[in-house]
């Protein structure tokens, strides 16, 4: 590969997997470039985790192919494993080992010598370093999960709902780390059903529904193309308040807005951004979060 710019770190074509009769991932094709964060957004059972499992060599694609860092996921998984970090959806730490023992074990598996303290500090875990994982709260365990995925300073991070169950401060700490890693040139594959998170972090967002990618673009483009920006006008009446929503792109809107401004007692007026949630609804008729 010649250029760093536009280098494809993750690439798939017609990637497919079914569990028996359940078609979990249905011929999906996409690519992620170096230094890019791809948000993989979809409701429960959409096929996000199954995609991660195929890309990380835990499941072998039944059709199509996937490549990570130029290596085929089915043929050379071990070459990939050296350079990736995986944060699993299910918490799979060794409960009877301490935080430190858990992390050091993985450091050893990579054959590295890493000082884990700075990483622990970044997610505010230092206090619990010698506590057994089984005694930690779910949120703390989730932070250990995230730290574990970073232990080998991976080139590619596969994060399957990394902020699930975290308090807002911890979640933000992790989001900031993800952004810092991106700045260092790391590539991130992030699954989530939190549309705010996807919007804030992702360079591009893929909407996945029933195993298919239904849209893939930057969050701005998705909202511009498919979302509706509106003008919300709140007016005082004798009985209380009255509200009117005007689509921004409608040619009638300026006229109607002027009318309201002149004739009515306006309380508030503001434009409303489209959200990824609305875009997803429009595309699939389904809600992201149940």
């Amino acid at each position: 590969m010649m250029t760093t710019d536009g280098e494809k770190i993750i690439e798939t074509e017609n990637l497919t997997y079914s569990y028996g009769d359940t078609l979990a991932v249905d011929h999906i094709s996409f690519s992620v470039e170096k230094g890019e964060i791809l948000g993989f957004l979809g409701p429960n059972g959409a096929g996000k985790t199954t995609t991660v499992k195929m890309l990380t060599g835990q499941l072998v694609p039944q059709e199509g192919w996937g490549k990570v860092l130029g290596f085929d996921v089915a043929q050379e998984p071990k070459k990939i494993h050296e350079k990736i970090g995986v944060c699993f959806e299910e918490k799979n730490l060794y409960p009877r080992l301490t935080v430190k023992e858990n992390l050091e074990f993985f450091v050893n598996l990579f054959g590295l010598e890493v000082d884990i303290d700075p990483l622990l500090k970044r997610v505010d875990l230092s206090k619990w370093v010698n506590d057994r994982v089984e005694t930690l709260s779910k949120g703390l365990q989730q932070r250990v999960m995230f730290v574990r995925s970073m232990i080998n300073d991976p080139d590619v991070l596969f994060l399957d709902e990394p902020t699930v169950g975290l308090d807002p401060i911890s979640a933000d700490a992790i989001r900031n780390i993800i952004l810092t890693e991106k700045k260092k040139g790391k590539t991130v594959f992030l699954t989530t059903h939190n549309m705010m998170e996807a919007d804030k972090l992702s360079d591009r967002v893929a909407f996945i529904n029933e195993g298919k990618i239904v849209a893939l673009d930057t969050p701005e483009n998705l909202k511009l193309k498919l979302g509706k920006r509106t003008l919300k006008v709140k007016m005082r009446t004798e009985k209380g308040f009255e509200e009117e929503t005007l689509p921004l792109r409608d040619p009638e809107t300026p006229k109607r807005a002027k009318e309201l401004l002149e004739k009515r007692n306006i309380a508030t007026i503001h434009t409303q951004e489209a959200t990824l949630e609305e875009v997803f609804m429009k595309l699939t008729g389904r809600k992201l979060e149940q």
Partner: protein
Amino acid sequence: MKFSRMFSMAKKDVVIITRSSFFLYMVAMPIVMSLVLTAVLGSVGTARPTLAVYGEGELISILEEEPSLNVTIFSSEESLREAVLEGEYDGGLLVSPTPKLLISGKSLLNERVTIGATLANAFREVSGKEETILFETKVIGTEGYPWKVRFVPFLTIIAVLVAGMIISASLIEEREKKTLNAVLVTPITPLEVITAKALFGLFLGLILGTIILVLNGALTSGFLLIMLFLILGTTFTVALGLMAGVVMDNITDLITRIKIFGLILYFPAFVIMFPQIPQWLGKFFPTYYFIDPIFSITQKGAGWSDVWWKAVVLLACDVVVLALAAKVLKKRMLGKKIKA
């Protein structure tokens, strides 16, 4: 294959075992059983052999001074015969007219050897000659082993079975808790994971087996030969354990199965424990070729020439289960589908 990764894996398993009451219980079980049996049935091999003596002369006083024997003087030949026949003494010596040694069928090999050697020395001392002394020896009473000794094969099987069980329980737990998934997305290969667990199991079985034999006073001779059979025997249970570890879904399932299949593994030990059971029945079970040689070596003084063919049969059993295990593991874990 990278040794350092396998070592990390095994090291982590050791720490986990020391923190799990289930694992600790498993390791402690054969040791505690040995200690309890020693307390209840008395120790074997540590006490001095008992010798009943009837007759007169210098020999008697020499024997009475002998520190390696516990000598009792009898007043009649009949009462001496009776006592040895009943197994109350390991041996009985009739001094005149020609020396005659009666050995109880229930005495152990160690004790027979000690009595023989001590008597030969004593005779030499009396006659003042360096030549070999011959005296008539006869085993009387039914041949049999005391309870304590008959339990040793059973305990030895438990020791190697525990090694296999710990390996399978540890694999099941890694699959259940999905820690195996996390391990397998690092550079360690499935084959290395399995090898690490297998070697750890082998090591555990060897250590535990040795401890059990030592505690039961059975590790007196043929050390290397016994080690060989311990390795071959543990290989058998570890291969079974690996197979169970990838097939079974939880530890409760494993324990239920062991209650059923364990009987097949224990049966040859029961055959030795109860001489009333036709002894040839044991030969149909693979573990017979593990404990029978160990029993022969430790209690009957058997050597390589006596037991080599049993080592071959046991090795063949190992090859069969290892091949089976490889097939199952390949399908479940090492092949295209990593199922955890």
